[in-house]
């Protein structure tokens, strides 16, 4: 025997307390009589404590001692060896979207797996304990381990498997740890894992899936066309079955329900088609849905899209009018979409001479041309070590830098190089000369092109527009806000939370707290310059809020062809390779019949004691 609440044993101190009370208390209850002289005085007993005498074992004393003992036991909650043992079942539920598919009988694989789980829970009996986990990149618990069957069913009622395809190994490992050496472990899925999968030895796999035809939305892109000042919607529909299927695609505006796109396509089995349509701006939110016969999974038939916003990069060319740099710069920048000329003070990126160093303004990128200003003699030729140098290569480009994506510098003569004593981080270098480098010490976004365009053919090479386009696009990505508004489940989402004078700073200079809100549930986001939103597992619309105001919003949809492919689903049962020892776990039940019984006995004893104590009082009026 052991005690669930050993501190309750302190209640046994009530026993000597009761004995003491009986010893020192006037323990004779009063009895009102007439003719006291007939009872004499020779049998009078002095009150306890005046002299040492044996404690009479009255019924009251016995009842009170017994009640105290039973109550103390009830508080200490005694457990006999096997009384506190119950079977422990750990259920792992496949949370991938294919579990939401419907079988030919009309039931979803989710419902089938829950039915299987319910069977197992009933087999455990009332004392069984169940831990339910759902799979995912981060496995999570679906029900309270202490919940009874009814509570667990209530908690599981809201389970909607919608995750993209993911690895189950982490879930299996966690389940095996929770089950311990004695618990049962069962994995409910829609297909049996491969034979070489690292399935735990003691895990039973029950597959409830069924091969189905399915047509899915494999991708949906909604982009802004700055030339046409309209938006372009591109949807790819894939037939993941084996039979030709007629599909109807509709696109409607979420706010008004107006249908803006409707197309019918016939797709061969295993093939996909792309549907493209130009849509006007201002629709804000679009719902794309496909309908086909015999479709197995509804979750991949509908997506929500958020209208993209044109992210215009403003630039300023700050050269003297007679400069020969302005024209090739302007020509190349004109070919880059979603750019706009602005004042030097307001521009996102400034192209200027390197004669003067950039001001410290993190929100503005600075591209300097020519050598860094250095003290020179006012008359005469420059010193030998400051004479411009022309190079034809070879050039060393920093590998993988986004500015140099596509840049080769083949056949380029880099002219007018003047060595500079400033510390710079080279992006393009030749020998000891830094040709294109990032300035260090002043600002992170200041770059220096150590070149004299009049002595170089760079502006005539294909690398010139590529280099400028890379600069503009990188600047565009650094603009505050989301880079895109439509994502797929599991994709990493970044949100640029502006810096100098950006939207993250309130009027008093304090940084507002960012919140991510989905379906009325909000969670905090770190208020850094670039916010990386953790991997999302639920499709739908998400809002980014600061101080209760919406900053931006985006949509997350299930685009997972592998998960939408239901042809590989099957059913079956793979028993554990190794049986559990006892399939029981030591638990402490919340509702214990022994405690209840002891409490009832104690109550009965207290009531009996009350009646016994009350009897003498009644004698004063009832005549004994």
């Amino acid at each position, binding site marked *: 025997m052991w005690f669930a609440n050993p501190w309750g044993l302190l209640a046994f101190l009530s026993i000597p307390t009761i004995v003491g009370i009986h010893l020192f208390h*006037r*323990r*004779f*209850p*009063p*009895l*009102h*009589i*007439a*003719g*006291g*002289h*007939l*009872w*004499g*005085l020779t*049998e*009078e*007993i*002095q*009150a306890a404590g005046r002299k040492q005498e044996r404690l*009479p074992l*009255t019924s009251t004393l016995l009842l009170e001692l017994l009640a105290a003992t039973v109550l103390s036991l009830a508080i200490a909650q005694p457990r006999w060896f096997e009384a506190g043992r119950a079977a422990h079942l750990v259920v792992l539920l496949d949370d991938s979207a294919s579990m939401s598919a419907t079988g030919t009988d009309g039931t979803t694989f989710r419902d089938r797996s829950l039915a299987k789980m319910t069977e197992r829970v009933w087999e455990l009996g009332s004392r069984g304990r169940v831990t339910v986990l759902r799979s995912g990149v981060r496995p999570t618990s679906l029900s309270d381990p202490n919940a009874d069957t009814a509570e667990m069913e209530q908690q599981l009622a809201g389970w909607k498997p919608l995750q993209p395809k993911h690895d189950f190994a982490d879930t299996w490992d966690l389940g095996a740890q929770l089950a311990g050496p004695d618990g049962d472990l069962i994995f409910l899925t829609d297909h049996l894992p491969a034979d070489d999968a690292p399935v735990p030895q003691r895990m039973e796999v029950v597959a409830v899936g069924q091969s189905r035809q399915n047509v899915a939305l494999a991708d949906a892109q909604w982009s802004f066309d700055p030339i046409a000042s309209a938006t372009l919607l591109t949807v790819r529909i894939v037939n993941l079955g084996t039979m030709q299927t007629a599909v109807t695609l509709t696109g409607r505006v979420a706010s008004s329900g107006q249908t803006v796109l409707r197309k019918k396509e016939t797709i061969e089995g295993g093939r996909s088609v792309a549907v493209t349509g130009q849509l006007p701006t201002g629709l804000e939110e679009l719902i794309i849905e496909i309908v086909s016969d015999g479709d197995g999974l509804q979750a991949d038939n509908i997506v929500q899209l958020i209208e993209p916003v044109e992210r215009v990069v403003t630039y300023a060319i700050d050269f003297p009018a007679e400069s020969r740099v302005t024209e090739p710069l302007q020509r190349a920048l004109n070919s880059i979409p979603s750019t706009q000329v602005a004042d030097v003070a307001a521009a996102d990126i400034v192209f200027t001479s390197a004669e003067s160093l950039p001001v410290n303004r993190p929100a503005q990128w600075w591209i300097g041309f020519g050598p860094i200003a250095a003290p020179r003699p006012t008359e005469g030729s420059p010193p030998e070590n400051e004479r411009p140098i022309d190079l034809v290569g070879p050039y060393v480009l920093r590998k993988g830098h986004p500015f140099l994506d596509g840049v080769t510098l083949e056949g380029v003569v880099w002219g007018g190089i003047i060595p500079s004593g400033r510390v710079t981080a080279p992006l393009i270098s030749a020998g000891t000369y830094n040709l294109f480098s990032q300035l260090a010490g002043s600002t992170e976004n200041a770059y220096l092109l150590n070149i004299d365009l009049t002595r170089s053919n760079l502006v005539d090479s294909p690398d010139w527009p590529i280099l400028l386009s890379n600069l503009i696009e990188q600047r565009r990505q650094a603009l505050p806000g989301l880079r895109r508004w439509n994502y797929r489940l599991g994709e990493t989402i970044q949100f640029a939370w502006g810096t100098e004078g950006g939207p993250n700073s309130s009027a008093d200079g304090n940084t507002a707290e960012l919140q991510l809100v989905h379906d009325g549930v909000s969670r905090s986001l770190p208020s850094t310059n670039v916010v990386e939103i953790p991997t999302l597992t639920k499709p739908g619309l998400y809002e980014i809020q600061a101080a209760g105001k919406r900053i931006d919003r985006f949509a997350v949809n299930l685009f997972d062809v592998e998960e939408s492919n239901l042809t590989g689903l099957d059913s079956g049962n793979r028993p554990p390779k190794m049986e559990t020892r006892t399939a029981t776990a030591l638990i402490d039940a919340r509702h214990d019949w022994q405690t209840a019984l002891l409490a009832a006995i104690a109550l009965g004893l207290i009531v009996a004691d009350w009646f016994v104590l009350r009897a*003498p009082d009644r*004698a004063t*009026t*009832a*005549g*004994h």
Partner: protein
Amino acid sequence: MKDDPQVQRAVSQYQLGLPRSPVAGRAGELLGRGTGSSLEFLEHREYAPGDDVRHLDWAAYARSDALMVRLYREEISPRLEILLDASRSMTSGPEGIKSRLACQLAAMFGLLSGQTGGRPVIRVMDDSAKFPALELGELQLLSKLDFAGRETLPNLLAQRRFPLSRQSVRIVISDFLFPCDPAGLIRRLASDASVLWVVQVLHGWEADPRPMGGRRLIDVETRSELNLMLNPQTIERYRQRLAALQAELMRQCRRAHASFVTVTADDGLDRICRESLCPPGILRAG
């Protein structure tokens, strides 16, 4: 109390067991010792001035030429005097069973006396003297007695706070559970009474106690306390003392030509009348 069903039933079934020749009382239904106006002829005597001329025996005058007066037996109602002990000791017992029976007995004796034309007086032996004497028409006040007296019956008699009637039929209702000299008490009660009936009222546990373990006994009258183990030995001693008290009261009553009877309140009035009051002749079946 006079409307009590048990009292009404007893009154309808019994009558007082009065002696054949009560000594005194107002004109009533019982024959007295003296001459009166009943129909029962007693004797002749010569006419004396002042005699009722309606009683002249004209036939005797014709025969003897002397005025003779016919004398008849007088008819009286006995003077009934009930001494009801209203001390606190009468409150012991379950739900005032003792005091209730005492009131029932007093009411019954009073009503039975009233049936014979008597004018009973109930003297409530209570030191508060709230209702010192109740007559036939005031029997309902018996139910208002609080039995809160602290003085014992002997003390009240010694203080002469209650004048006792001469030549009366005197009934004493008490538990006699107070320290006293039975000889002196009975002698005092019997003095100047033509008849004395003494009724001791106890309740069941007083008459026949049972062991109860340790108890703190509190005398309701004296408020004195004592802790006592109510074991068989203690109870036996109590019984012996009670029996000695009752025997002494009985002996003194016998010496005073009085009747002494002990009744147990738990038996109820009907059974008490039938089994306790009829055998000694206090009551007769009507």
